[in-house]
């Protein structure tokens, strides 16, 4: 190549106490390209990017930008050099608005040092429009879904004049439609003098967005391949050091299972409308739908994390009342949240404390005293079977890589002996190899008679695992499909029905009473 590389990293090493996260790592980013960076959980991807963006200092190594050597000393300086990063874990202030978050520390000021909210919102509006994001500058970030928070992060990163944009698992929380939007955004960002480093565990999307793929393993460089000339199978086997079986489907599908849990007419004030479904013994029931369809809300309503405004829940034929998650736990219903940092982990506690949290009293205590030996032994078992990469179970959860943190949350629910497990995005941020292991564990649980609700934004995953699939749209359940009926197309069809906007859709769902439909028709005509 005649043109200098946009970014070059050479001989980078970085250690943490007990962990060698990177050793002699190198990486080359050409101008105008999207470079995918892949590797197993804990391979060192995030660490490399944090080193590059000035969050960690390196033990050794050299960087150059457009052929010019440089040193990164602080995140601010990295930004000034044109290196912008979107972190795997969000760095948003939940109580501030979208606009305030985007321009935090750079708020427009008026004479006298007062902040101008109006100007701030206008600036944010311009940016959001330019990026074509469905955001409102005045909304409080804490009230947004994970996917929308992700968009705020993207807007924030692109608000700097970035030359190198690093995205650490930007799509982990997005569904396919949102991924497509993000990819459009990236393509618009790419110019002859810019480049993107794109980290993801979703192999499917690498093909469509990246030009080359760099694979790393255990903190070391493995190879860089041209995406167009490579099959994803190859990439995966480089990543995990072995081949994986693919194209598997759900296991143990039967239609003679007994009903365990029946949900009837479940509604909540903000979103859910008349959701009814059944969960059977030993069944994996998938929940599919677009962002904001209400899948997480169903889960939270069932376990009593949110108030319901109507509806009944029947367990083994007996109506039950669940006021909070501890009631749910008493009925042996467990819920793994989609947002591990906010609702899943005790970030400042060690791995062991996190894994045994939900089962501490039941399984690991006697007369109120904790049986630490047993607890730690069990934690160690799970660390082994889920291959959680950590120097010991005494490691603080915060220091684990994102995917390994997710595994810890999964482990917490595998330890507790629940009859019903609701997994909300259980494989978020988990690498391909480990995903298969988790699928295996879920299948195991189901074959032992546990019932599982699996919410996922990754359609292939839902199709791969579910005995039946419940599809949601706009707070309603639009279909429950059997494994045979379910295809990418049929699920998408029901996920995109919009009964509130379209009469045809409402009629298809049989929810438009004559009265209602006349009104809507009239409204439509008036327009």
């Amino acid at each position: 190549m005649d043109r200098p590389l946009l970014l070059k990293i050479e001989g980078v090493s970085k250690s943490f106490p007990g962990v060698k996260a990177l050793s002699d790592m190198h990486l080359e980013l050409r101008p105008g390209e999207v470079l995918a960076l892949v590797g197993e959980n804990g391979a060192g991807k995030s660490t490399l990017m944090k080193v590059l963006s000035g969050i960690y200092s390196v033990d050794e190594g050299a960087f150059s930008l457009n052929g010019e050597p440089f040193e990164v000393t602080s995140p601010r300086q990295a930004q000034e050099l044109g290196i912008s990063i979107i972190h795997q874990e969000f760095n948003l202030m939940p109580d501030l608005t979208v606009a305030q978050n985007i321009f935090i520390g750079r708020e427009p000021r008026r004479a006298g040092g007062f902040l101008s909210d109006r100007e701030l919102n206008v600036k944010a509006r311009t940016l959001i429009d330019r990026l074509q994001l469905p955001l409102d500058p005045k909304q409080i970030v804490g009230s947004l879904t994970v996917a929308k928070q992700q968009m705020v992060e993207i807007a924030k990163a692109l608000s700097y004049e970035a030359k190198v944009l690093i995205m650490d698992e930007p799509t982990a929380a997005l569904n396919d439609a949102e991924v497509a939007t993000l990819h459009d955004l990236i393509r618009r960002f790419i110019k002859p003098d810019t480049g993107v480093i794109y980290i993801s565990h979703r192999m499917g999307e690498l093909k469509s967005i990246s030009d080359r793929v760099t694979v790393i393993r255990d903190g070391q460089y493995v190879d860089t391949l041209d995406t167009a000339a490579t099959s994803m199978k190859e990439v995966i086997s480089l990543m995990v050091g072995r081949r994986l079986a693919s194209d598997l489907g759900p296991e143990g599908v039967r239609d003679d299972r007994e009903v365990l849990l029946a949900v009837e007419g479940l509604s909540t004030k903000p979103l859910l409308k008349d959701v009814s479904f059944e969960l059977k013994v030993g069944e994996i029931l998938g929940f599919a739908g677009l962002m904001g369809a209400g899948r997480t809300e169903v889960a939270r309503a069932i376990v009593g994390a949110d108030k319901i405004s109507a509806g009944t829940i029947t367990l083994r034929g007996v109506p039950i009342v669940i006021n909070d998650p501890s009631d749910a736990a008493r009925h042996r219903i467990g819920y793994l949240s989609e947002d591990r940092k906010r609702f899943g982990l005790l970030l400042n506690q060690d791995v062991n404390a996190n894994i045994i949290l939900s089962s501490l009293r039941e399984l690991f205590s006697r007369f109120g005293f904790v049986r630490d030996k047993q607890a730690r032994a069990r934690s160690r078992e799970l660390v082994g079977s889920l291959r959680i990469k950590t120097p010991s179970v005494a490691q603080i959860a915060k220091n684990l890589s994102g995917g390994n943190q997710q595994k810890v949350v999964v482990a917490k629910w595998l330890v507790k002996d629940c009859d019903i497990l609701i997994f909300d995005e259980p494989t978020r941020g988990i690498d391909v190899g480990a995903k298969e292991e988790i699928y295996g564990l879920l299948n195991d649980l189901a074959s032992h008679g546990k019932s599982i609700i699996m919410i996922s934004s990754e359609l292939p995953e839902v199709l791969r695992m579910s005995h039946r699939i419940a599809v949601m749209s706009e707070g309603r359940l639009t279909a429950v499909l059997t494994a045979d009926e379910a295809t990418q197309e049929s699920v998408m069809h029901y996920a995109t029905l919009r009964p509130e906007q379209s009469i045809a859709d409402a009629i298809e769902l049989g929810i438009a009473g004559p009265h209602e439909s006349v009104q809507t028709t009239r409204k439509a005509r008036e327009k």
Partner: protein
Amino acid sequence: MTPTSAVQDRPTRGLAATIKSRFQQFLAFGSLIVIVVFFAFASPNFLTFSNITGVLFSTVVIGTLAVGTTFVIITAGIDLSIGTGMALCAVMSGVFLVNWHMPLLLGVLAAILFGGLIGLINGFNVAILKIPPFIATLAMMLVAQGLALVVSGSAPIYFTDVPGYLEISTGNLIPGVNFPNAVVVLAVVAVVAAVVLNKTVLGRYTYSIGSNEEATALSGINTKKWLIIIYTLAGLFIGLAGVMISARLGSAQPATGMGYELQAIAAVVIGGTSLFGGKGTIVGTVIGALIMSVLNNGLQIVSVPQEWQNVILGGVILAAVYADNIRRKEG
């Protein structure tokens, strides 16, 4: 397939790492020694047997309150009602023993349980009514102060006619050695509290709630119930402190108590417990309480005026929290 995780029991945790993870306690302990050495050189009266027992003696009240509050602060809460709550419990002890002539043991137990009741109400307000701990316990601080005056008719209650009451605090377990029982009580209390915090389900939940209350609740733990239990437990310490202080003074002083809460909270913070929750130890708190009373005592002995004593105490608190912040950043 290569195993990617090497799981051992003990991490690569040498002495250096242990010191780092317990930095605040080591720092507090080091400071304590430095302070003691300083006063020992500054005044010949400091390192005498009678002064040392005196210092330990005065640690008892703040220490007992601080140990109870440690639980609350680890849940990311705060308890401002411990000072005046203690005065109210002292008054109640007077009511039970002097006015109602209850048997000694029963009366003392009732006074301690009364403290538990104060804590229970705090816990209810925080966990069920969702009133922020600062406000809930601030209100309780005022309520307790008022009630102490109302119940006692604004006059001290004297325990002169209650045989054995003063012995609880000032008596000597070992005959002939002038080592007050109160110190033994604090030692026992601290050990029990440390065991509860480290070895029991209650202790683990205390840390969990302080680390992430929502995640703990979503793990199926009845955080409301446990918060109430934790505040009630802290209340029992208030009751005990009320007994100890009145036994030492020989009277229940209804108008005192205000100010003790800040001393106790300062002791907890100096001992390395984070006001953000999820982190803290009883050992640290005891060291913190010792630092507070050594400073109180030492500054008096070297005749620093009262006003300046407070200035110095304030400075020590700032220094302690600042040291913790630095460690956190480097973390």
